[in-house]
């Protein structure tokens, strides 16, 4: 194996360590930079409004997970902390089955320390060194049983009939300077048999089921996201290059997708079975001046769609052959520099819940918060707060259709 041609290792290593330590003390500088970066004035379109976050707190409408704890309508202690570093929020870190009785969650066991402020070489990490091992675990909320579902695996998508799709790594360990490639496999129930659906190993993420079609990402060079539809073993269709999944329609027959790379982008409604475009909205155009892009991990109830965007949380109305923006709700960018993400409808679509990260200011490091918002009143209440490393998230199932809790 070719080794790194390190030069000046001890001296530069010490220099870097001290430099990072010194910079780490400049939280005020970071906060100022973030505030500047997010200082774009909110859209002044007639549809726009700023969300007011009230000091009062509310009970979560469903389940949430933070560290190794599940809270909300049920309480449980997990055997491992739930997190999915290889997935982010391309897919939920914890997903319930259709009945809401069991939860599959991602776990991440570090095999050696990796300080993100320092480079791998500085830490003595060589190409091929094992850094971590992802796994999927199954927790029964009724009995408290917590078992390993798959080792060297991540991103579970749970279908209405109990089948589970996930990515099984070719190598169980995540290693330095190695792409963590795997196969998309489908298991006919948590204790069933694995069937490989992908034809070649790649960097996939199992995102959601739309009926019996598995929707998955393929992460390519430069983190470009390709959206794939898998109708069975080896039956793979490319729904879009540089495309992200916004949400699956309640009946699972349509999906909302958006450009993941191009800005200004396009929001499209596709027929899942054929991949045909049913409706489109060109963003950043006279038709819809703002927003200019829409992000992944949104939610769809009845004819309403909510998604993250560059101008706040965007609510759309979807009809047979059209999709239209109806509301833009922004969070205060000084308080929440990156806005709200991963919005989910709650209470039959009358409200939505959303996650955000607070700005880091002296004495108050950044925190992840979960909010419940009333779009009609443009107000939000705080549901929970935790340090970013706790991976505070809503527990939800983006697959459709679903019978019970989702």
């Amino acid at each position: 194996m070719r080794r790194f041609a390190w030069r000046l290792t001890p001296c530069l290593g010490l220099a870097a360590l001290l430099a990072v330590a010194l910079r780490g003390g400049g939280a005020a500088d970071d906060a100022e930079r973030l505030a500047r970066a997010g200082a774009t004035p909110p859209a002044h379109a007639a549809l726009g409004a700023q969300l007011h976050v009230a000091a009062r707190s509310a009970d979560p409408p469903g389940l949430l997970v933070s560290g190794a704890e599940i809270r909300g309508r049920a309480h449980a202690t997990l055997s491992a902390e739930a997190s999915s570093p290889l997935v982010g929020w391309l897919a939920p870190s914890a997903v319930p089955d259709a009945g809401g009785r069991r939860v599959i969650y991602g776990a991440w066991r570090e095999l050696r320390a990796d300080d993100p402020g320092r480079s791998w070489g500085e830490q003595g990490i060589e190409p091929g060194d094992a850094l971590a091992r992802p796994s999927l675990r199954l927790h029964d909320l009724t009995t408290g049983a917590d078992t390993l579902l798959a080792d060297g695996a991540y991103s579970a998508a749970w279908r209405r009939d109990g089948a589970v799709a996930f990515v099984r790594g070719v190598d169980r360990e995540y290693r330095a300077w190695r792409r963590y490639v795997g196969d998309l496999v489908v298991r006919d129930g948590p204790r069933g048999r694995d069937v490989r659906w992908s034809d070649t190993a790649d960097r996939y993420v199992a995102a959601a089921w739309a009926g019996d079609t598995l929707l998955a990402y393929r992460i390519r060079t430069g983190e470009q996201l390709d959206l794939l539809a898998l109708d069975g073993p080896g039956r793979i269709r490319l729904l879009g290059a540089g495309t992200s999944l916004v949400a699956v329609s309640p009946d699972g027959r349509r999906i909302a997708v958006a450009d993941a790379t191009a800005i200004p982008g396009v929001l499209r409604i596709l027929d899942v079975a054929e991949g045909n475009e049913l409706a489109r909205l060109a963003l950043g155009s006279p038709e819809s001046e703002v927003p200019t892009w829409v992000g992944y991990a949104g939610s769809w109830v009845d004819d309403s769609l909510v998604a993250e965007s560059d101008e706040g949380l965007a609510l759309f109305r979807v009809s047979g052959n059209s999709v239209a923006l109806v509301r833009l709700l922004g969070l205060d960018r000084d308080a929440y520099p990156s806005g709200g993400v991963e919005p989910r409808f709650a209470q039959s679509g009358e409200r939505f819940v959303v996650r955000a990260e607070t700005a880091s200011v002296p004495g108050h490091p950044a925190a992840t918060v979960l909010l419940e918002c009333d779009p009609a009143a443009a107000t939000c209440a705080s549901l929970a707060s935790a340090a970013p490393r706790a991976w505070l998230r809503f527990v939800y199932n983006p697959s459709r259709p679903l019978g019970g809790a989702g």
Partner: protein
Amino acid sequence: MRARLLTTLVVVLILAAPGCARASIGWFELDRTSNTSSTLRWKYALDNDMVYTGASWRAGTGSTTACNQIGRGWLPVGWYDTWGHWNNYDGLIKGRVFYLQDKRCGDGTLRTELFIHSEETASNGQYCPTSGDDPYCWEGWTDYYSNGCIKLAHANAGFPDAIGEAHWEWHNRFGSPAHGSYGLYHRLYVG
């Protein structure tokens, strides 16, 4: 500004310390201020003497400041190693590229498949077949948006030859003379 001066001072002091080998080294430094208008600088230290700043360029990274948004967030802070530089890379991205190590964001999310690159062809030219956004053509400021990578302009549509200048600094101011896949320590700092 204070943090930048301190960083430079620390590098100088350490390089001047007894026992440190006399050698020169160059690296990129990204000052992350916005998705489409951050600044990438070339810095180099000469034989344990002084740290100099070479050219600097407008640079893009991501399309949101949420670092932990895979495929859209800007690059995590910290020092990066590189694993290769190519003049004629011919994959999904093309041309002059620098391959970066994976890096974790504050919550632990891993950013992977990261590069410094432009929008150009494998032969370092421009391919602009449509009136829309072509992936190997630098048409305008929106091309600074990326999935997370650092993007530099190609000389086209009135934009400077930033990728060409960065490439020159790399080869001529102590980055590395080599091409292909090879590991180098500390060739990018993102702050």
